[in-house]
């Protein structure tokens, strides 16, 4: 038996969250005596795909077709279903992401598989198949049992340790059949900032709120982010007012981040904002109001004016790099 992992890639490399999914599958495979096979769609260098081996995959199946580069959900689901059959898998593991969710959802029907999303730990298998998942946007966990033979697990980011010591995987081409109806939705163009660090994947995030007063002051956020090697984020009112693009909005109704370090500047810490950052390992809060609720969720804090603190902090970070 095999465990199949659906991996996503961007800018010529496997995404970190997908490597986490492979690491998770590897730990599960050891427990169940199975083999890990990954499947990747679209154009990407074979050498880059072999890196799935570092996280424990024995083999990567590649479906190299330009048409699969963009996230056409039906086509991806169809390909992964064929790969699942081909390798004789009974479990599909993937990283939770907007594309992953959409593909996995269709696969539950194609594979007649029970699915649990936002998985944070290996299943408990003595007497049933019980999976721990994050619910209520990080405010609680649930233990859910999967009752079907085929299973799909969508792993929450930053919830499993990344394995990085495996040997390169072998990469094989996979032939699949696709029909026109898989491409019913047509991508006409994309509009993507290419030089930015991806916010959902970032290891460090520096976010600004309404306390930054206006878009003209964002250079202070960007300077600190640059010094730290961080992605930039913001609170909802900031993106609502058009100070920052929508894809930077963090929180309950925006991006859920899970970095090692989240730095919040001039953000009050409303519960809806916290819902998007509660999976961060460490939180630093900079706010001039000592009563700001964010301090209750923080590990480190500075009570002070962002316009004074940020330039000094940026210099101090540069000094150690």
């Amino acid at each position, binding site marked *: 038996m095999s465990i199949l992992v659906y991996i996503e890639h961007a800018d010529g490399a496997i995404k970190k969250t997908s490597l986490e999914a492979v690491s998770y599958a590897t730990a599960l495979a050891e427990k169940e005596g199975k083999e890990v096979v990954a499947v990747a769609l679209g154009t990407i260098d074979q050498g880059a795909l072999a890196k799935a081996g570092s996280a424990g995959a024995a083999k990567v199946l590649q479906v190299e077709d330009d048409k699969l580069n963009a996230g056409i959900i039906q086509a991806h689901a169809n390909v992964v279903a064929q790969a699942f059959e081909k390798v004789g898998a009974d479990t599909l593991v993937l990283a939770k992401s907007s594309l992953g969710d959409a593909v996995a959802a269709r696969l539950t029907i194609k594979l007649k598989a029970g699915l649990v999303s936002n998985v944070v730990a290996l299943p408990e298998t003595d007497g049933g198949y019980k999976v721990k998942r994050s619910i209520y946007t990080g405010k609680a966990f649930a233990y859910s049992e999967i009752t079907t033979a085929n299973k799909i697990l969508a792993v929450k980011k930053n919830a499993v340790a990344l394995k990085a010591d495996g040997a390169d995987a072998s990469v094989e081409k996979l032939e699949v059949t696709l029909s026109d109806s898989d491409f019913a939705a047509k991508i006409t163009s994309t509009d993507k900032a290419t030089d930015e660090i991806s916010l959902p994947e970032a290891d460090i995030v520096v976010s600004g709120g309404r306390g930054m007063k206006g878009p003209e002051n964002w250079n202070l956020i960007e300077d600190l982010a640059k010094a730290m090697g961080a992605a930039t984020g913001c609170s909802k009112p900031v993106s609502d007012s058009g100070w920052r693009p929508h894809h930077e909005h963090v929180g309950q109704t925006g991006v859920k981040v899970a970095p090692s370090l989240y730095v919040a500047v001039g953000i009050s810490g409303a519960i809806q904002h916290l819902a998007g950052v509660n999976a961060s390992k460490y939180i630093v809060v900079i706010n001039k109001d000592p009563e700001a609720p964010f301090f209750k969720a923080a590990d480190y*804090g500075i009570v002070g004016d962002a316009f004074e603190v940020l330039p000094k902090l940026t210099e101090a970070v540069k000094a150690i790099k």
Partner: protein
Amino acid sequence: MKILVCITHVPDTTSKIQFTDNNTQFDKTGVQFIIGPYDDYALARAVELRDQTGGSLTVLNVGEAETEPTLRKALAIGADEAIRVNAFPSDSLFVANQIAHYATEGGYDLILMGRESIDFNGGMVHGMVAEMLGMPSISPVMKLDLEGETAKLAREIEGGKEYLEVNLPFVAGCQEPIAEWKIPNMRGIMSARTKPLNVVEAVSEDAATKTISYELPPAKGAVKLIDKDNVEELVQLLQNEAKVL
């Protein structure tokens, strides 16, 4: 143009999440229930599209009788009729089965949902329903315009947007800024009382998962405050204590 919007009945975003009965039941004490925030965006855009095309707009929830005030609110916002599929929504697949079954009979041109529920955070039901109905599914959608039988959409991707075209019918999971949330006005609230809210029985379909128990995360320790004139200390802590720099 027939539009179906599926809405969840979920705890208000400020709710304190707690469990009872030895961590096996969600504690509803003092909890306000709302239309899921993403579903609210879907509904708002659906009202605009209905007004634009002069079609009909149905809202649907799979839930028990307690969800009816939430459906009434959707009627007050502008839906023409509401459907409650009478069942406890114990699992995404079960819910998707109910929606797909209802939608097959209704012959909808457009099915809008939220990108994900804010209780179980699955982000799955739209894809499942689309697969069951053999339709395309697109999520998370942040812009949706209709030009005859074709829809032009923008889907959020990491670091930007992807623009798509797809013919009706299809299923979309929505998020902001597809439309502004609509607040019901007095006329809406009055008319909602007389709009139809029909209860249909669930089709028996098996679920694929069963939730057994819940757990709360451990409480966070106290914050360590650093003087604003000593930012070097923060950098030192991040480097040597947290080891994140």
